[in-house]
């Protein structure tokens, strides 16, 4: 009998490998890094306000209510694609969107916002990408949801479209707002 059982060992090993590799390859396919910053406070920073070019902004200026933090740049094609959706959210959803203008030319960035309209409460100029690094950003666009105490509760990598907003972001925003009441 034991001889027959041992016949299944290769099959079991094969199945185990299939399951492990299956999980492994799925992780790589998703091309999305799990964020190391979920449930951690928004990192502090001192960056210039994009529009004024003078005023310094810090993390405290973003904290107070549930809000979106969007990393964008004029060099980023997907940022143009997601822009109409951000405008729609800022118009219809009564939620503040803060912009992090990532490694960009300030003049070009201001022109860009004039051309495509500005959905942001304000944007800060992250010329060296230091705030982006503190946020674990590795490309643009990326969108974070912070709660009213300034803790990062959600991160989305890639453009925000109607589907992403409805299925991934809005439920988190609604949940966080529900907790406040």
């Amino acid at each position, binding site marked *: 009998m*034991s*001889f027959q059982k*041992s016949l299944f*060992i290769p099959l079991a090993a094969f199945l185990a490998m299939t399951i492990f590799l299956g999980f492994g390859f799925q992780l*790589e396919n998703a*091309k999305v*890094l*799990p*964020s*190391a*910053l979920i449930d951690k406070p928004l990192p502090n920073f001192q960056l210039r306000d994009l529009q004024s070019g003078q005023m310094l902004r810090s993390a405290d200026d973003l904290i107070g209510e549930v809000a979106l933090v969007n990393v964008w740049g004029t060099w980023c094609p997907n940022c143009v694609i997601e822009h109409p959706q951000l405008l729609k959210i800022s118009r219809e959803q009564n939620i503040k969107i803060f912009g992090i203008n990532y*490694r960009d030319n300030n003049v070009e960035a201001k022109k860009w916002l004039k051309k495509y309209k500005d959905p942001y409460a304000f944007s800060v100029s992250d010329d*060296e*990408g*230091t705030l*982006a*690094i*503190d*946020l*674990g*950003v*590795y*490309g643009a666009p990326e969108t974070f949801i912070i709660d009213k105490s300034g803790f990062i509760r959600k991160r989305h990598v890639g453009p925000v479209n109607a589907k992403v907003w409805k299925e991934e972001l809005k439920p988190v925003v609604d949940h966080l707002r529900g907790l406040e009441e």
Partner: protein
Amino acid sequence: MKFSWMLFVFLVSRGTVLASIDAYPFPNKELTDRYEELISELRCPQCLNTNLAGSDAMIAQDLRREVHRMLIEGKTNEEVLDFMYYRYGDFVLYNPRFDLKTLALWLSPFLLFILAGFIWLKTVRTEKETLPWEEEDEKKFNEILESRSD
């Protein structure tokens, strides 16, 4: 012949890929070596399978600058790796840390080794057990042969 040329070009071009363009000045050889070591064991977050040394991605350039800054400030290798780990998680380390999430990764080779040893022992034992059977089988076999030859 054509193939060996292709192989030659491939091997030569690989070397150039691993060299980063920006050169940061360091006051001494020890820091330069540590810089090279760190950027070769940190993975570029954007490129899935290139280290910081071998990537031209914007984020890799920025992270190399940060590694340089931290080394000049006198940070230890451990502090630099912590900085990256805190922001980019396990992905950024080519030498992953031992914790609950990477437990399977670290322990599976040992478990597989033990399992293989167990299977090997079992096979050896069952082979020994089947030896007396073979004698009986041979008897039966001879009987069949004899009955056939009639």
